[in-house]
């Protein structure tokens, strides 16, 4: 009971600081993007009305748009409007399409979520088993290959890897399709590209974490007690090694979200990362803010999930059996 109370308090405190950071970062982003009415009208002209980003809209047109959409507001009133809106769940409208930002984002969430999840899955399926093997057979050839491969994995620029994979699998071997968003065949190349770096990180972490745990005294004691190697490994070492691994998965999901920005552009994947890049180049301020807000919120959710898994894994925190 006391334990639950203290965790709750901790969570609440985290929440408060988190909100503070959220407010600070969005305000900063807002100011940075210094929304001037002329600029918003310019974006609307090029993307919605004129439909051509290379032709300059005339001043007359800009004036008409400014009047029509009442864009002549001060920075402060725009900001307060936005904040009020957010608190009511309204993130404003995209300059580029005039559709609600929330709609633009939710339209693309499934795509990014699918891509990120599959990438994490791939990285788990590759990284953890390899890390395990490398740790068990430390200093063997297998270990050497895995470790070197992992270092390559974290060193390779993911946009370059994407291009090379496309050249090999889409063009030369004609296995995967090139454009679009569809089923598994469209998903596999982007997911592999994103999953590689994460798999490498997880592999290294699993290996070192496991090695560390295996060195611990209590493991030696268990060995001394005569338990079979396999039992020791599975029931004791892995569970304890899992904690940093879980933290890392949480962090990797985050890096993955960052990685999707470039990968989605290369593979024409209609996700949030691509939305962000497109809106940055179009200076579509509400969408940029909306994306930043959303991604930060996704973070919070993730950290929360990771925090709640801990008690189940760490015998010292929760109530799980430590045989």
């Amino acid at each position, binding site marked *: 009971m006391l334990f639950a109370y203290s965790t709750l308090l901790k969570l609440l405190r985290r929440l408060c600081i988190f909100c503070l950071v959220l407010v600070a970062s969005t305000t900063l982003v807002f100011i940075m993007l*210094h929304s001037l009415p002329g600029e918003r009208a310019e974006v609307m002209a090029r993307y919605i009305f004129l439909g051509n980003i290379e032709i300059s809209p005339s001043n007359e047109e800009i004036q008409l748009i400014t009047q029509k959409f009442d864009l002549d507001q001060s920075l402060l009133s725009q900001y307060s409007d936005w904040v009020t809106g957010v608190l009511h769940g309204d993130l404003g409208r995209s300059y580029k399409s005039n559709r609600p930002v929330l709609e633009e984002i939710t339209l693309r969430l499934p795509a990014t979520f699918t891509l990120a999840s599959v990438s994490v899955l791939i990285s788990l399926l590759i990284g953890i088993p390899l890390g395990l093997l490398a740790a068990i057979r430390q200093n063997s050839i297998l270990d050497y290959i895995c470790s070197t491969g992992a*270092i*390559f994995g974290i*060193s390779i*620029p*993911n946009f370059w890897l994407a291009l090379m994979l496309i050249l090999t699998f889409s063009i030369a071997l004609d296995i995967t399709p090139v454009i679009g968003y569809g089923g598994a065949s469209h998903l596999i190349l982007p997911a592999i590209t994103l999953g590689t770096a994460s798999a490498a990180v997880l592999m290294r972490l699993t290996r070192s974490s496991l090695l560390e745990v295996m060195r611990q005294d209590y493991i030696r004691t268990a060995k001394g007690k005569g338990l079979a190697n396999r039992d020791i490994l599975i029931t004791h070492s892995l569970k304890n090694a899992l904690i940093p691994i879980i933290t890392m998965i949480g*962090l990797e999901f985050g890096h993955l979200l960052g990685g999707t920005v470039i990968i989605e*552009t290369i593979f024409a994947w209609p996700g949030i990362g691509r939305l962000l890049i497109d809106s940055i180049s179009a200076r579509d301020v509400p969408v940029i803010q909306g*994306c930043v807000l959303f991604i930060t919120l996704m973070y919070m959710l993730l950290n929360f999930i990771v925090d709640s898994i801990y008690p189940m894994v760490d015998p010292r925190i929760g109530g799980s059996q430590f045989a």
Partner: protein
Amino acid sequence: MPRSRNINEFIKNKASVVGLIIIMILSLAAIFADFISPYSADTIALKEKLMPPSSEHLMGTDQLGRDVLTRVIYGTRTTFELSIMVVAFTATFGVLVGVISGFYRGIIDEILMRLIDVLLAFPSIILALVVVGALGPGIFNTVLAVSLVGWLYYARVARASTLSIREKEYVEGARAIGCTDSYICLRYILPNCLPPIIVLITLNLGSVILTIAALGYLGMGAQPPTPEWGTMLNDGKEYLRDCPWLSVFPGLMIMIAVLAFNFIGDGLRDAIDPRQMVIK
């Protein structure tokens, strides 16, 4: 900490040595680019455009007739300059903040801890993109953008080291005899921070190079005709299938540089203290 033991362990790690050699070669290339480059990096020679690798142009020529090898060499200089600038700024600032925070604790420390937890998890590339998007592309803005989140890593490590040292007897002793805070920090705390910070610097350099290249690839980095590997990859995209050398070589260079720093960083970490879990 017995230095000789660490250096020995480091040398035993073959990968680290290889990494060190690579970085030394690249650094020399960057410094002496003017002397070793066969051609000029930005002289346009349109009639010699898009030539595949040959004995005259070991890495071929690009879409404006410039020698790719030369641009790759000068690109080393650009990349190293940018990453060193970023790391110098973030490391200095981060260590300062981390030491102060860890030394004085209290409310500042609390806020910093939360800030670090939250912001470190946030994908830094996105923040960098927003900054460059708002301020416009260019070298200075790129450095600024990448530095914005980078310093947090250093702050966290410096803080951890500070915490572990401040309770030691000799620090208390020094305080007892009246040493000022700044003296204690400089004389005892800072040197203790150095080993993990050095490891972090080497690993961080790799990641900074990747971020800078990524920004360059998205067209938000160095402006033409400045040679930078990521920007060169972006330029080469249009000719990917017909002139793959424009994309293969710069990408390879990025990988080699990052690999080298990772090898060194790993070796240093294993040699100094494997328990210092420095993240990426």
